[in-house]
């Protein structure tokens, strides 16, 4: 079976769900989520048996690549979407409040279907090695998200987030397209491999190509939430519904990174552009680390805090980008930049989803999103609190969780690269950022276990449905297990 059937399957799944939503009775509509989850699960199993190959569906037009990275990121996309659907199911009470007027289930169906289409876009992004396909798949994802972000149409925050995301997203698209135009103008190519050839041929002028690259970087920086193009992240994360926040922070970011990795590779390995690219990437890393971590300190809204944390994580991930130059990669000891970033993103999926799952359940029960709403969770629901504890610890990079291994690999690269190139300032920003990270992550831990004897919160018992419980336990185990045996993930990449 050709790999692109996976995307087609996903699309079919999406259409099926739309059909079911449109033509079935109210009761069965509530099962859409289950249908989506199981469908995605099936596709995931197909994916496992797909072998990477260098074959492309059309000759001379590299619109679709199925290398191991593509498959890995496709898996991340599917898994993320699957988990988002689980979250969405838990979140449905809140969603109902902000969408429906009279009919109980009207208008919720799309909430389960749209992520499926976005998922198809994410999967396509993983395979795209051509600026046109990159652009199209990216837009498929982005436009899907425009709708999802502003889905709670009776909630002002959601709409505000939607508008902000729309305007800034379109703005970044503008830069992306303009950059692509310039790249085409300078190199005459859209395909990344060909662009690499042109760059190395020496026939290209330096200034315009760098100008074009910078514009491209702006567009992609927006996707991965690199400062200063992160500006949408806090508001959108905060305003939109919990499952979509999770989706944005994991799925969108992972796909953004694979695209970013693919795009910058030719530019990093050309002597023409390498030095500028490294410099600008290092700069972005530093400001991203600084901004993400420092601003997170004062946050009181969990989602907003996680938004900044997501920016900070982007910073950590980007540490491995300047080190992508092949001169260094051959000397690097330990996992390569690609491997490390991919590992980190997979781990990030596990831990972030774990946190959001807990947060969704809690916020559905308490109807609040401030950190204080987690107060006494340790007493109210030890399982949820422990899951959150592990998730947060992993985000903070405490050893024996997957997050630590991720940070470890990235620091490994950053430090060796600093030795190689002397860019110690990046490492020091990272240390500073990680240290600040301890503060805001532990703030959440603190709230959960402090004040367990609080009378008000004792009365609120939390019901966790079996599916969520199972997923929580799976994710929890995953975070810890991969934190001890990283080869569980790394093995997929090597």
């Amino acid at each position, binding site marked *: 079976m050709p790999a692109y059937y996976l995307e087609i399957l996903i699309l079919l799944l999406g259409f099926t769900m739309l059909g079911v939503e449109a033509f079935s009775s109210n009761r069965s509509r509530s099962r859409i989520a289950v249908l989506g989850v199981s469908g995605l699960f099936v596709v995931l199993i197909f994916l496992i048996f797909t072998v990477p190959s260098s074959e492309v569906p059309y000759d001379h037009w590299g619109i679709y690549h199925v290398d191991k990275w593509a498959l890995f990121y496709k898996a991340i996309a599917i898994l993320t979407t699957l988990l988002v659907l689980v979250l969405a199911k838990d979140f449905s009470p809140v969603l109902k409040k902000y969408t429906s007027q009279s009919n109980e289930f009207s208008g919720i169906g799309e909430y389960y279907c749209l992520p499926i289409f976005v998922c198809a876009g994410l999967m396509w992004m993983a395979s795209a090695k051509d600026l046109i396909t990159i652009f199209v798949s990216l837009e498929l994802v982005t436009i899907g998200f425009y709708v999802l972000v502003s889905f709670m149409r009776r909630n002002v925050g959601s709409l505000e987030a939607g508008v902000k995301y729309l305007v800034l997203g379109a703005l970044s698209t503008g830069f992306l397209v303009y950059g692509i135009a310039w790249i085409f103008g300078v190199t005459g190519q859209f395909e990344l491999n060909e662009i690499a050839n042109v760059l190395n041929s020496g026939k290209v002028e330096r200034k315009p190509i760098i100008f074009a690259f910078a514009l491209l970087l702006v567009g992609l920086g927006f996707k991965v939430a690199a400062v200063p193009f992160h500006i949408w992240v806090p508001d959108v994360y905060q305003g939109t519904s919990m499952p979509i926040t999770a989706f944005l922070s994991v799925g969108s970011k992972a796909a953004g990174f694979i695209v970013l990795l693919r795009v910058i590779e030719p530019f990093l390995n050309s002597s023409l552009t390498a030095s500028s690219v490294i410099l600008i990437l290092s700069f972005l890393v530093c400001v991203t680390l600084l901004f993400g971590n420092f601003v997170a300190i004062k946050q009181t809204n969990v989602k907003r805090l996680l938004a900044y944390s997501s920016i900070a994580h982007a910073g950590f991930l980007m540490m491995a980008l300047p080190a992508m130059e092949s001169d260094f990669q051959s000397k690097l000891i330990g996992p390569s930049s690609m491997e490390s970033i991919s590992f980190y993103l997979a781990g990030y999926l596990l831990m972030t989803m774990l946190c959001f799952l807990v947060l969704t359940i809690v916020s559905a029960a308490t109807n609040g999103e401030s950190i204080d709403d987690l107060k006494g969770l340790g007493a109210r629901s*030890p399982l949820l609190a422990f899951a959150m504890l592990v998730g947060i610890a992993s985000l903070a990079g405490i*050893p*024996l969780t997957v997050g630590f291994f991720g940070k470890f690999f990235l620091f490994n690269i950053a*430090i060796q690269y600093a030795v190689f190139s002397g860019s110690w300032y990046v490492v020091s920003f990272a240390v500073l950022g990680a*240290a600040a990270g301890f503060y805001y992550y532990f703030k959440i831990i*603190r709230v959960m276990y402090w004040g367990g004897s609080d009378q008000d919160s004792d009365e609120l018992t939390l019901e966790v449905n079996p599916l969520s419980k199972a997923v929580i336990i799976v994710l929890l185990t995953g975070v810890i297990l991969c934190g*001890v045996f990283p080869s569980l993930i790394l093995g997929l990449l090597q």
Partner: protein
Amino acid sequence: MIIDLIVLIPIIAALAIGLGAEGRKTALGAAGANLILGVIVIGELMRRGGEELIFETSTVILENPKLTLGFAVDGMSGVLVLLTVIVTFCAVYISPEKAPDGRVKLYHISPLLISAGALGAFCSTDLFFLFAFHELALIPTFLMIGIYGHGRERLAIAWKITIYLGVGSLVLLGGLIALYSNLTSDGFATFKIAELTAIAETMQLDQEVQKWIFLPLFLGFGILVSLFPFHSWAAPAYASAPTSVAMLHAGVLKKFGLYGILRVAMPMLPKGFEAWEGLILVLLLGNIIYVGLVTISQRHLDRMLGNSSVMHMGYAFLGIACVNHIGWNGAVLMMFAHGLSIALLFALCGSLRERLNTLELSEIGGLTSKVPFLAVSFGFAAFASIGLPGFANFASEVTILFGAFNGAGEVGNLQKAAILALWGVVISAVYMLRAYRNIFQGDSTRGLTLVRRDSLNKIPIILMIAVLLLTGFFPNLILSMLPS
């Protein structure tokens, strides 16, 4: 296998408590089992001499760089394992059934996890897990100090220790990465301590390289040991922490940094140490003299003990700075002795706290007649702490000092530092005896009511005193296990 068991038992017990097992009994059972296993391990080490690793297990979890999850002990780690199991047992024994707010689980899980972290760190044969296990203690410590700590500032203190230690670990992590990535042979990198040491010996890195790898390693480990001037987290944290955590942290966990320096930094980067020797001597004197003076002017018993534990770390650093086996073995003995004595002091301090409303030295007085057992054991602990003969602390201090002067025909920097460090002996006598005199001697007429009068948990206190005396009279019991 037995070592794996030692590391796993506390974790399993913690899990069991989390899933609903009875708090204190389970913890005590686990700690007791570990105590027995620890003694068995020590027995085996004594029989074999402790030069090589025994009971080794390993699972390779990553190929390149080679990461191995595995445990083993040699003499040095054996001593620290023994320390850990003893202090854990005592700390768990001393903890009451229920936390002050009535919660059970967290209160008993945390000490177990701290203990497991320390044990894992001491027994890991792999640098990576040596680091990783130590961090296991971070969250329990944070929670315990923050929730059950004493004093109004406990929250700020919990933050301080967490972030401080977090930063320390990050610096350390940087150093570790720089270390292993420089110690490669044929593109093969490993984290296994034994292999790294072997490579380091054959490779002989340049002085300049060693110098710059040594610095983050030393600072990272140093921050965890409260090396001057990175000590300001320690005293308030210990003063504020609940008794069991103070015992475990000050007694056991803090030794991790020293262990790391002895295990990693010194054997692998000898020239790195040489490059920084002057600085290190100044810093360790900062610990002894400067922090010693700070200790003198403390007005609260708990603060004073916290500072004193910072101060005594200076001697361990001095032992390390000797760069010979006399000093190093002295330092290991020091870790053991100090670990027990400070744990003992904190245990007693905790009992005092339970019985009084205040620990302000000027408000307490003449308690001997009211709590005679406490008075006598505090006397023992104080004597141990200020290094009187008969206690292991004295043996270790003497060994360290002799190590510093070993073969010194003239008085060099190290010797000068050792002489100044010796003044610390006077300083520690000053604050310890002042405190003892204030608390237990003199007028008992000052209006002070005992809040509680129920009987003490005597067993752990007696156990710790007995071990201190035993190893003080026969330091060779410990020293014979260490490499020479």
